[in-house]
């Protein structure tokens, strides 16, 4: 790949600086290296031969969260996050990629079973220093960027993957006609299994049948890392799985997976057949939040009122334009007082594949998020992306907040059960 191909798009930046408005990284560092204008300027400088490809480009290219907030504030609508991914790809070609990425992208992500085993292995083995596998897994954001550091994460790591309990295959539902495919993202499969169980319950209530797919990783981690090839491999594996059954709709409860799978046609820009297949299948795909808002959901009964706030995952709000829906769902549940937090659509800092190297930066972004969360006085912090959940849970612990982080499925399906043990907060 040649970054010159992107010259027109890059030169569209007139350096007005409006991207600085809501870039979580820039707002933490105050450094041009961490904002769209700067990243674009550097890619332009490379094209215009003022700067060379070197390790110095790593930071500006790889500390981008890919959250897309810059594009929202860019009056020229420049898709910087996409350009960054392309820049990363060239960087990997020119400067080289690290073996741990190879390990993760080529040998773990395509195989759900292996991935889960590796996670457990890494978790238990972590006391003896960080293994290579642990390092590689650290790049996978669903484990949280602090994977290698977080004690409690390890304790919570379930012994079996989600699909070890609820095996891939078709399950009957109580609905009339809808045949649902359930795409299990790595986050739910390995860690956020409670969310998965609740999603499953809801799907079974709505669908005539629910098929738990034997999918692999959606491909987003290698894609954001700039490894388009690895991403394409994973995507085509998944496309085969989608087309192996006949579904009216395929649902996932991970907004990151959902937004990326919807983008599949873009991945295969150079492969017409695969692209056609992706184009045909991707309309079937729904984020759980969309699905809930389109199909209705079983009305839960809440005994004690609680205060709920919502964090917009980047891949929901900017990736798929989902913002109204989750709020409407939450507000419609009796007994829930919904309180909007400031900057709800700001990234939580959990994104990106630079988990290990940008720990401090990510924590600064998270601290800002937590301040906003705390200002609402909520009992529940709801979201729709397992990766965000990990990061937010870490934030809640770190800041000693008395707030439960949960997936929207959990609040919708398990609303009643979750009342137990919740102390009411005084209204803020």
């Amino acid at each position, binding site marked *: 790949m040649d970054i010159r191909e992107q010259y027109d798009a890059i*030169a*569209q*930046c*007139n*350096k*007005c*600086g*409006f991207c*600085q*408005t809501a870039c979580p990284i820039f707002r933490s*560092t*105050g*450094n*041009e*290296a961490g904002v769209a204008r*700067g990243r674009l*300027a*550097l890619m332009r*400088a490379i094209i215009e031969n*003022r*700067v*060379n490809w*070197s390790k*110095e*480009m790593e*930071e*500006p290219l790889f500390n981008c969260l890919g959250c897309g907030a810059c594009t929202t*504030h*860019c*009056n*020229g*609508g*420049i898709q910087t996050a996409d350009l960054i991914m392309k820049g990363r790809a060239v960087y990997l070609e020119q400067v080289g990629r690290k073996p741990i990425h190879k390990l993760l992208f080529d040998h773990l992500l395509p195989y759900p079973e292996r991935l889960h085993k590796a996670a457990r292995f890494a978790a238990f083995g972590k006391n003896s220093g960080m293994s290579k596998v642990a390092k590689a897994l650290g790049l996978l954001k669903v484990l949280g960027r602090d994977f290698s550091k977080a004690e409690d994460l390890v304790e919570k790591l379930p012994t079996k993957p989600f699909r070890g309990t609820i095996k891939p295959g078709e399950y009957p539902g109580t609905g009339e006609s809808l045949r649902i495919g359930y795409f299990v993202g790595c986050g739910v499969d390995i860690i956020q299994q409670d969310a998965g169980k609740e999603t499953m319950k809801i799907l079974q209530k709505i669908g005539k049948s629910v098929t738990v797919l034997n999918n692999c990783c959606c491909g987003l981690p290698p894609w954001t890392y700039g490894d388009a090839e690895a991403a394409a491999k994973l995507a085509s594996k998944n496309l085969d799985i989608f087309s192996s059954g006949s579904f009216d709709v395929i649902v996932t409860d991970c907004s990151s997976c959902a937004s990326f799978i919807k983008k599949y046609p873009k991945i295969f820009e150079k492969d017409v057949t695969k692209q056609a297949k992706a184009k045909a299948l991707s309309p079937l795909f729904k984020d759980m939040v969309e699905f809930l808002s389109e199909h209705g959901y079983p009305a839960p009964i809440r005994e004690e009122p609680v205060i709920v706030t919502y964090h917009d995952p980047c891949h929901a709000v900017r990736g798929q334009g989902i913002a109204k829906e989750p709020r409407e769902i939450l507000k419609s549940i009796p007994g829930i007082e919904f309180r909007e937090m400031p900057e709800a659509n700001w990234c939580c800092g959990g994104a990106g594949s630079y988990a290990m190297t940008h720990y401090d930066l990510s924590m600064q972004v998270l601290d800002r998020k937590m301040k906003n969360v705390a200002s609402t006085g909520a009992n529940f912090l709801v979201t729709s992306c397992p990766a965000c959940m990990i990061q937010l849970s870490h934030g809640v612990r770190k800041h000693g907040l008395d707030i439960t982080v949960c997936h929207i499925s959990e609040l919708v399906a398990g609303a009643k059960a979750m009342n137990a043990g919740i102390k009411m907060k005084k209204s803020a």
Partner: protein
Amino acid sequence: MVSENFIRELESIVGASHVAISSTGIELYSYDASLIKSNPAVVVFPGDTQEVAQVVKAANREGVAYVARGFGTNLSGGTISVTEGLVICMSRFNKILGIYPEDRYAVVQPGKTNLEVQEAVGKHNCFYAPDPASQKVSTLGGNVGENSGGPLCLKYGVTSNHILGMEMVTSDGEVVRVGGPVLDSIPGYDLRGLMVGSEGGLGIITELTLRILPKTETVITMLAIYDDIPSAANSVSRIIAAGIVPNTLEMMDATVIEAVESNKPCGYPRDAAAVLIIEVEGMKTGLKEQADQIQEICMATGCREVRVAGSEAERASLWAGRKGAFGAMAQLAPNYLVNDACVPRTNLPEALEEVAAIADKYHFRCGNVFHAGDGNLHPLLLFDSRNEDDLKRVHKAGWDIMEACVRLGGTITGEHGVGREKQEGMHLVFSGDDLNTQTRLKSAFDPNNKLNPDKVIPLSEPKGQPLPPTPPRTLKRPGGASASGVAEAMAEIKAASASGGSVIPVGAELLETYGNICDASAKPVKSLAMTDVIDYDHENQVITVGSGMSIDDLQALVAEHNQWLPIRPPFFKDGSTMGALAATAVSGPERMYYGAPRDFLMGLQYIDSEGKVISTGGKVVKNVAGYDMTRLLCGSNGTLGMITEGTWRIATKPELCTMTSGTGDLASCSKAAVALMTANLFPVYIAAVPVEGDNWRLTTGFEGLTDVVRHQTDLTSALLAKNGLTDIADKDYDLLTGPFKEYFQGLDQKAYVIKAGAITTKIPELFNGLKMALNGSQPEWFLDFGCGRIYVAVDTLDQQTYDAVCKKIASVGGHIRVDKAPEAFKRSNDVYGTLPRPEWKLMHAIKKALDPKGVFAPGRMQGKI
């Protein structure tokens, strides 16, 4: 290049992670939002004031120049290191340090963005008036650096009208405070005024004290749609001429509408030739009527349709389009060059025609989005910076536009600054002498030329030499040496200067002389012959008059057009001159609402210590061409030059003036005053004078449209009663005389008048302290809560008492000037207090730079210089 040692030293000061020297780091700080580009040698991100000071000292030792940077969104190359030096990025200075609605100020660090400050003060039901379209991404430091304006500035003025004080690091690495939270600046040169718009050339700001105001009750936003541009421009002139002061009058033309609508549609009609966003705000009462009146004017001047925003969402959408307009140009072309020349409002139609012709000539597509009410154009020339030829032509076109606007009586930049980009353009508006004076001023702050060097003032050949004394290339400045009385004064001053003598500029000689006693040998030079009305442009509400004209004559003259100069200087006599007003910068209690002479003077001319006429500013309301010499001279009290003429902004007379008064003890009055400071009302002044017993009579007034005034006096009566005041009564009064003239005359009967400044909430404490100190001397008082001043008049003042008074004032963070005292007292005392202040050093440096031989009023300054 900088040395390895220097880098290590920087790392040891700010930490290695806060120093950037990599090729990428350098590239990232080689640009700002302008078209200027140049690599710095190194970038640092200091975390606190001490680090800035140490960095500056280290840079001085290394001999490298440095430039402060906020978020790098300026449009003039202001943050580019043109000498391959050090960029000091202030982005880590991002805290809000305090918000004090009762005293109407907030303290913030300069790296905070304008919008973040707005949001923070908004929570206290206040707002900070300057609102540049870039407010989401421009820092307060940058706003101060450029003296930024925004849509709201039509009504409230630009950044320099809202900066009260700052902490800064000077070029020698010292930390100095300038100004403070009190509305009146520390007596002496207007340093805070000088710092605003100094483009990083006079010091590095590390903390800012801003003036904030209570939010207004309501706002009406309208979109006026036009089929041709001249009609829109015509509406703008007519609205202002009708005496309405909208918050904003923003214009966008068809090209900009297209860009905005294809980016994020916000409801501008795509087939219109121009739209105006017009907004009025204020009390609910009477606002609808104002909006209706505006609509009528628009419709009578060829408007197609006026739409009124029906909800907050609609309003936000109208503004989103305007505020995103520059960036939206990216929809049409990769780059734009934005020019920000100003013209007198009434010349807008011609200016826009010229702009269109120039764009045509150079084959550029051009869009216009601008502050029409201020006459501040923003033509955006669209091009692609990858095309060398485009780049060359676009700069030429930009130059031609500047020249055309100056020819129409305007200036080269209204708010974006000169920086590197418009440096040569300074020749269009200033003479070589004017520019050399500005260079001297800079050298007072920065003798080694290390602070953002080689910007603003055109470079000379060979470097470092004064520029040749050529007149401005384009701007015609009537008056000057040819105005009556000026040549004679020039001759006298020249003679004094040549013979090593000194002079004191004087007007009608009716006033007590402010300041310390002058050297007895200084010869008075009179301004009384300078009575020309040099230019009265009543449509644009601007007048230029000679210094010898009396204030009364000026008021009588402009009254013919139902206009007035909204200043009622206390202690001024019938016959006191405009020159004296400019030189002393005195304002009455109405300052809290209208402003002071510094806020009305747009430009002036003065005779400098070599007998040459020097010009400052111009005749457009927004003007950031060069250092703010106008504000420096205003209030310089005859110590820097003799002001020969001033250009003043005037206003339409209010319909009605009514005051509401109530009686109570000091605590109740002070409580009521604070309530008025924070209420959604527009009091013109809030002041109290003693009445029987220990009681005070608190008076506040309202001036404006009849309905609005009446409504406010009603609310005020209730407010005073609620705070326990009695005998509440309303009274109408004459606009020009004002409510306190007689009272001030009473104070003036005493031998001494002391003026003390302190924030509103400290007034009671200061009063009690002063009362104790002045025990037994039967003082008379005037408590100006609104501006934060106490006037106290006594017949005797001994040394010990004076010391105690000064100490007391210092203890509440205030400042002092003895406005009137017998000669004997002045001989042995400094009227600026017994405690020297750190900013005096800067004032003395300015004096030395601009009047090196001490020609003007020697001995008069603080410290008796």
